[in-house]
């Protein structure tokens, strides 16, 4: 029993990383109905910026964390303006292909700048590696930091979308673009802002997983996969669903990895089969709306 709880806790921790990247995917999906293949690579690039700030410039960890998020938001906005805007009105699959191109470009650039040699990335100071024991279950403080950060992130985004004028404008632009434009919302810029926010959220996920997985240009590819699964499992339109989905995927993979014999190779396949089975029962995702079509 303790073993199960142990696995659930460590699953929740990695799930937090999937959740934050899933959140980033949902932010973009809501505004342009396209999956951003480059989300993980953008997060990886942000993490390299943080590494540069901490290890080369010798900045304080938390200062570097904040600066990286700010730079990522600006970078995401810029990417949308330069790369996505020309295809804003194209079919969604065209947009998806552009993000796939972006995936290769960002990955290759990171390789050119920082090389493919893996680098250690520091964890948050004040949260030592040494685990504490609660009722026989050992919990890493860094794992706790991860889980708490994810929930805080969701809280901040919720507050932003619910209580600020800009958040309202962004929601309106995503749901009713034409009406919003008539009311004076700059819908195109809202898209850019959506990309900025997504890049910021993605940067957090990158900086959270880097101490666990080490830093290299390919580190976010499996994370992107799980985040995609998490976003869809939760219901692609729903940010809360993305976070719930992220935690669920983390726990599911941890449990399969430990308790299904011989599942080392098949862990991913098993996990995805379970997720697809859930989707067949609930085709709109766990927290999504049922399939409704207007005729």
């Amino acid at each position: 029993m303790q073993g199960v709880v142990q696995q659930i806790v460590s699953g929740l921790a990695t799930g937090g990383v999937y959740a934050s990247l899933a959140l980033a995917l949902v932010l973009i999906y809501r505004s342009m109905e396209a999956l951003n293949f480059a989300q993980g690579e953008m997060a990886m690039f942000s993490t390299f910026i943080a590494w540069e700030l901490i290890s080369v410039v010798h900045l304080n960890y938390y200062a570097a964390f904040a600066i990286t998020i700010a730079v990522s938001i600006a970078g995401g906005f810029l990417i949308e303006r330069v790369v996505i805007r020309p295809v804003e009105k194209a079919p969604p699959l065209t947009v998806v292909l552009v993000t796939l191109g972006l995936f290769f470009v960002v990955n290759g650039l990171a390789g050119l700048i920082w090389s493919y040699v893996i680098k250690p990335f520091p964890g948050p100071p004040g949260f030592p590696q040494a685990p504490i024991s609660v009722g026989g279950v050992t919990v890493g403080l860094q794992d706790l930091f991860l889980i708490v950060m994810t929930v805080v992130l969701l809280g901040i985004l919720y507050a932003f979308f619910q209580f600020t004028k800009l958040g309202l404008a962004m929601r309106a632009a995503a749901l009713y673009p034409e009406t919003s434009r008539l009311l004076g919302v700059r819908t195109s810029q809202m898209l850019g802002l959506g990309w900025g926010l997504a890049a910021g959220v993605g940067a957090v996920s990158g900086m959270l997983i880097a101490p666990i997985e080490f830093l290299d240009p390919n580190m976010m590819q499996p994370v992107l996969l799980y985040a995609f699964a998490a976003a869809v499992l939760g219901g692609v339109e729903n940010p809360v669903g993305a976070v719930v989905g992220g935690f669920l995927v983390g726990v599911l993979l941890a449990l399969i990895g430990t308790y299904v014999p011989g599942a080392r190779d098949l862990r991913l396949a098993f996990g995805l089969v379970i997720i697809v089975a859930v989707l067949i029962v609930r085709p709109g995702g766990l927290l999504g709306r049922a399939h409704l079509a207007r005729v």
Partner: protein
Amino acid sequence: MDRTFLGLGGRTWLISAVALAVALLAPLFLLDRFNTLQFAYVWAFAIALIGLNVLTGYSGQISLGNGAFMAIGAYTTAILYYKLKVPYGWTILPAGLVAGLGGYLFGFPSLKLSGLYLALATFALALSASPVIKNFDGLTNGHEGIVLPPALDPFGFGLTNEQWLYYLALIIAILLFLFARAMLGGATGRALRAIRDSETAAAASGISVAQFKTMAFGVSAFYAGIAGSLYAIITAFVSPDSFDLPLSLSLLVGMVVGGLGTLAGPVLGAAFVVWLPIYAQQIIHNRPDVAYGAILILLMFVLPQGIVGGARQLAGWYRRRSRPEEASDEASLHAVRTGPVRDWTEAPLSGTTGPSEGGSPRS
């Protein structure tokens, strides 16, 4: 148009005939051994892309998992040869049929899903292929893969190895192209397009939506299986790593670059997918990814509807320029006949409330 033959207009007929003649003569006069082999891959890929286009371009179901059906086809060929010593020529059709059956069966659970949800389900299929193959190593030889014999010209035409593979792939590609054309040009094609544009309206008109959607999955997987089998024969080797994620992604790239919902698109898309990595390598030697990605992005800027979509726009523009008085008539006629290239997300997505009420989601 009065001058039609087999449903082709005069000019289209001429272009097709010239293209066919070039394709048939190229390996004898134009291509060296390396290029001949690369074009054999192009034809094999074209088959897979035609199949994918039936599914995504015509029936509106997105699939990121056709790489898995290619794996089934390739391994059917390899195992039939390796375990049962069946000559490779006799393994191509069974490879397609086994994959097709797999696709047909996969179509049933997929009936429940659409849009990104279906994308994830098929993505799961693509990602499972390689681990599953490695797990059943008694049958598939696991990580090491299976080596096939080199395919030699069986008729003694004096063709080199590469030339024979080229013609084998080309002839099968032409046959399957004509089959797809016949199928999509008739009642089946109309039913599929009706489903893509509105499932509810199609069902109300008496089309069995479930039957056609699962059939589209089956046909698409059949094509992928044949393509996989040819891939195995051309490479003379199968291993699980060939059927990993990059394969399914390059199928997606080929389909969109060629042009969704078109029949010529897959051939152009296949050429793009086979040749671009080779060129990207030449542009930026140590990091070809950057060149690959940049070219992909620029291409989508210039041709958001794919190569065939772009060519159609160009042809329409040219026709309007050269014959202003009758052009408007013909342009509108053309628009009615072929319609704009529609895509999978225009099928009703689950959970969207806004766009259906507030008009287009992005405009």
